[in-house]
């Protein structure tokens, strides 16, 4: 009987290995998104000050991460920084560092945009109640800004999850790499393996990213009512 291509996924430990690869993808994404969100809020807040040097540093930081491709950043840290500083970093650690820094730069911009889009009279009516500077941010501005950052944040999170597929190139075995290995090792037995394996990976990414956009829609609906 001819082998059905889809069986490649269920042969041996293939399915388990794909999920292990997905776990690595998720680990890098999840940790980076958490760190990026935290740092991004701080960066976003710092970008609403009037202190010029801080603004300049933030501006350069953002532009560097936007202009230079993420892959190059991975190489800079994996090959460059480790050698220059003589430290030993695993591909996984480098991936988390680079994705956190990139995410923080983008998140900072999203938070800044949200804070600056709030009407000036929100600030003034908060001040008129005697709120101190940080109380104004804590109770009035940040809660409103968070709602406005939501679409951008979800978009950034899905972009980060997708872009983690680059980590293959610094030797991290993520879901895409495992897929390639499975295809390589079974290409005689299952000539259509690449179709089924990549198709399966496609579904995995969809399952990870889709709930995020559902969540974002739900929250937006809730906050609008």
């Amino acid at each position, binding site marked *: 009987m001819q082998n059905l291509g889809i069986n490649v996924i269920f042969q041996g430990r293939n399915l388990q290995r794909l999920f292990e690869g997905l776990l690595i993808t998720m680990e890098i994404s999840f940790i980076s998104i958490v760190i990026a969100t935290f740092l991004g809020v701080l960066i976003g807040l710092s970008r609403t000050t009037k202190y010029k040097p801080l603004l300049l540093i933030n501006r350069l930081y953002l532009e560097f991460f936007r202009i230079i491709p993420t892959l190059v950043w991975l190489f800079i840290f994996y090959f460059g920084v480790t050698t220059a500083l003589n430290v030993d970093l695993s591909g996984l650690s480098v991936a988390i560092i680079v994705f956190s820094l990139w995410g923080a730069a983008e998140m900072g911009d999203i938070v800044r945009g949200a804070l600056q889009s709030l*009407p000036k*009279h*929100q600030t*003034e*009516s*908060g*001040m*008129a*109640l*005697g*709120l*101190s500077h940080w*109380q104004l941010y804590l*109770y*009035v501005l940040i*809660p*409103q800004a968070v*709602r406005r950052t939501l679409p951008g944040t979800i978009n950034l999170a899905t972009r980060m999850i997708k872009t983690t597929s680059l980590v293959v190139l610094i030797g991290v075995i993520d879901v895409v790499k495992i897929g390639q290995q499975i295809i390589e090792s079974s290409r005689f037995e299952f000539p259509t393996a690449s179709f089924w394996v990549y198709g399966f990976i496609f579904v995995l990414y969809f399952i990870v990213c889709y709930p995020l956009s559902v969540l974002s829609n739900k929250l937006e609906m809730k*906050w609008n009512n």
Partner: protein
Amino acid sequence: MMKTKSEITLLKINDIHKEFDNKEILTGVSFELHRGEVLVILGPSGCGKSTLLRCINGLEKIQSGDIIFDETSLIQDNTNWPVIREKIGMVFQNYDLFPHMTVIDNILLGPLKVQKRDKKEALEQAEDLLARVGLLDRKDAFPRQLSGGQKQRIAIVRALCMNPEIILFDEVTASLDPEVVREVLDVILGLAKQGMTMVIVTHEMGFARSVADRIIFMDEGNICEIAEPDVFFTNPQTERAQHFLNIFQY
């Protein structure tokens, strides 16, 4: 309740100058506000009346002159504006409630977080004030569920719940539909009768006449005329005030 207007000077504005981009907005304004007094500031758009209000609670910095509140100058480097603003409340034109909070949370934010008052006591006062403006049943509503007039009454309650010594009203009915202007003005009139010290910027002439103890008429960044309302409206002394009043009569 009897009016408790007194001769005690609560606020003294002394020759204040304010510039934006080298353009003079206030050119040496001086006046005094007594405890329990209601001052209404009238004048054409751009005469500086809103800016004047905003200077009083430090939302705008002045270039020279002095603002003396309760015998203390506010124009000092170490003025703690948040503390002053607890005592000098302000209600704005655009009923700036915080959209992510319910009515009651909007009102309690200042009393609980700024004044660190007891929650039960502050809540009692807030509910009492809400009942007085007829909105107790809306206390758990969000601002977007309220009409403009309701939002503005809530904004007044929010300012009142801080127990301020003065409230500044900056054209609080200017962006309201005509049919709800009255409900807001009635609230302010009620406060005047209870002896609240207020400075009101408005374009509602009938209201100004009935609420004011004194009218300040401003034009081009300075005070042209200060008079009791009956005198001002029937017999304005300056040509500019006469001209201004004529605009409001068809």
